[in-house]
């Protein structure tokens, strides 16, 4: 099938299916709105699965369609263009699945992958902790082996466990070896969320929504067979998983950015802000940045990006998140004072959400500061930032 035929197929499927009972999902559930309409969105995931639109990049032997990068890009673009809702299946499909494909055993693949692909089980991620935000190596959640059952008993706290209250499983990075420090002695566990030792509390965000949680473990149980790799492998697996996070969703994300910019242009044209030279220049600058991101993604998504591009791709998260944060502010400045008070216009509310939510873009998934450290140290070969005297801190 030609790429254009494939594009038409995606667009056609979306048009035919994102309608009727799924119509309310149009453009919902994205950043800042991530906890919207959860049950309907789970149904939507199953709908997608029936259509063969989940896990299209997974290898065929693991139930995927093994589609090449170009098709995956097209899918992301058309999904976003059609106003497809935020994907509740994203963490399973994009993070845990590839991790299991790379590091899981056959039994795990058999038990977990089909449920992800079919939209039957949803995943949350458990990495950050209150005292280990950017500094994953200093996590303190402990996993001790129950000598009788061979299961692992987990105690501690994770934060920013996105959508844990809507998920069935969570993967957890924990300290599996008593007394270990830093990246050593960590273990990567897969845990059911509906059990007595787990408590999930919503974290209220600055815009008012609650897409993230703090999740508390008090002797929560992980079956012996539900660890990935062996104890001590946790760091290596976690780092690989973070690598999966980047990539294809980029282009769908950019399509969403473009829709946001279009909305800002629409409002600026309506309310007269488009007549102000400073606003005009900022909108033009935003457009330039968006085009740059698009071409950057096209360079990164080449089959074999050359070293120069690999180096530059270290900066992509910093690039998009700061662009997006600025866009959030631009939206408010286009609204002017009318954005400061409430409005019956849902477009205004969308821009207000954008303003608050984009503040998190430069923090989650590696803060600006961590990104710049990584670029300087790994990309430019500059000296590493020294750790403080204690691995744990004051």
């Amino acid at each position, binding site marked *: 099938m030609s790429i254009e035929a494939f594009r038409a197929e995606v667009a056609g499927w979306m048009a035919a299916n994102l309608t009727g009972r799924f119509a309310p999902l149009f453009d919902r559930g994205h950043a800042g709105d991530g906890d919207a309409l959860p049950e309907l969105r789970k149904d939507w995931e199953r709908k997608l699965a029936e259509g063969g639109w989940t896990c299209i990049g997974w290898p065929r032997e693991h139930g995927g369609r093994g589609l090449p990068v170009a098709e995956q890009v097209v899918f992301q673009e058309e999904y976003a263009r059609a106003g497809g809702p935020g994907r509740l299946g994203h963490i399973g499909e994009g993070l845990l699945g590839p991790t299991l494909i790379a590091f899981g055993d056959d039994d795990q693949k058999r038990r977990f992958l089909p449920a992800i692909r079919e939209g039957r089980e949803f995943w949350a991620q458990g990495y950050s902790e209150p005292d280990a935000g950017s500094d994953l190596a200093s996590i303190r959640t402990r996993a001790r082996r129950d000598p009788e059952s061979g299961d692992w008993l987990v105690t501690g706290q994770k934060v920013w466990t996105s959508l844990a209250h809507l998920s069935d499983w969570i993967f957890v990075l924990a300290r599996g070896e008593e007394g270990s420090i830093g990246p050593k002695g960590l273990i990567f566990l897969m845990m059911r969320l509906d059990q007595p030792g787990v408590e999930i509390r919503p974290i209220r965000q*600055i815009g*008012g929504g609650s897409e993230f949680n703090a999740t508390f473990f008090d002797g929560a149980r992980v079956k012996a067979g539900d660890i990935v790799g062996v104890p001590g492998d946790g760091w290596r697996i976690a780092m690989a998983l973070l690598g999966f996070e980047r990539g294809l969703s980029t282009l769908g994300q950019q399509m969403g950015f473009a829709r946001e910019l279009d909305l800002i242009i629409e409002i600026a044209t309506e309310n007269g802000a488009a007549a102000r030279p400073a606003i005009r220049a900022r909108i033009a600058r935003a457009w330039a940045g968006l085009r740059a991101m698009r071409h950057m993604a096209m360079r990164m998504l080449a089959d074999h990006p050359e070293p120069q591009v690999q180096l530059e791709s270290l900066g992509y998260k910093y690039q998009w998140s700061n662009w997006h944060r600025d866009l959030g*502010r631009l939206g408010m400045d286009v609204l002017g004072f009318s954005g*400061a*008070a409430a409005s019956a216009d849902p477009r205004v509310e969308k821009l207000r959400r954008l303003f608050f939510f984009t503040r998190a873009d430069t923090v989650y998934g590696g803060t600006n500061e961590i990104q710049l450290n990584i670029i300087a140290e790994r990309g430019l070969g500059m000296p590493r930032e020294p750790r403080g005297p204690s691995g744990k801190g004051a």
Partner: protein
Amino acid sequence: MDLQLSPDQIFMRDEARRLLAERSGSEQLRRAIGAGGFDAALWSTIGGELAWCAVAVPEEAGGLGLGAPELALLAEECGRRLAPVPFWSSACLAAPLVAALGAGEAGAALLGRIAAGEAAACAWPGIGGADPLCGTIPVARRAGGGWTVSATIAAVLDASSAAFFLVPASADGGLGLFAVERPAAAVEPLEGIDLMRPAARLVLDGAAASRIDSAGFSARDFDDALMTARLAEAAEQVGAAQGALDLTLAYVAERVQFGRTIASFQAVKHRCAALLVEISEARSLVHGAARSLDPLEVAAAGVLATQALFRAAEEAIQLHGGVGNTWEYDPHLYLRRAQATAAVFGSTDEKLAIIADALLGDAA
């Protein structure tokens, strides 16, 4: 010639700082959010007991007869703690407006009420624009021996706590300034982004009004009468920027990552230091402009203060990391103030245009 603060000014500022540190901390702010962005007890202390609103009211109207420099100092302290009281609306906006445009007993009586701690709010169509009277101006009509005013104003700041409203309205073919008592107005609170300075929709449907001015005034007069309010808004922004920096410095001194306090990372140090410079620049301009009340300097103060506050709030959220994006930490309260004030009396580019027009002649 120098800009040294007098011992009285320093005393006044330090007392304000002490009071607000005690009475407008994080917990009190949370309670105020629950109460619609207003702390009645704090207002009774500030407006009533301590008579901050009397500061710039002329002595003959029961005030202290001080001026914009003192108002600016108090506004700065209020901004620093985001004090949820209508000090700016009453003391910096309403009082100077009445002092400039009001006349006779009617004016003096209102000033006396403000000086005594009654909250006032100002209602005009164009608060978000450089031109405060753009939009549909309220209409006043003679009724019996007095007046009535009819208007719908989309957003009036601090409306909910106001005892009365000041409304510029067209009257007898010119502009007049009217006072409408709270019971005569319909006030519909809005969900605004600034949780500490609530706005409301105001509907006046033939509301009984008393006229404050004697013989009308021009749009230009009205604009000039807002100079103190513009200046005080910038002062408040400077204070809020300082407050956001205070929060940040406290957090980075405690928060440990990679075995070190965040404050020990040079990039963090440099950003905090650059912020201090930016805030100090804005503060200097506010202090200078408070003496001159020169429209260009006031516009410039607004530009610098808006920018300093936005950066300080942005950095507060960023350097708080994950928790900076949570409701329960305070940085977002400052970001909300930053964005909400960014376009009061015109956006930054409109303020710069005022200066550019004066330096370079009109653009067109």
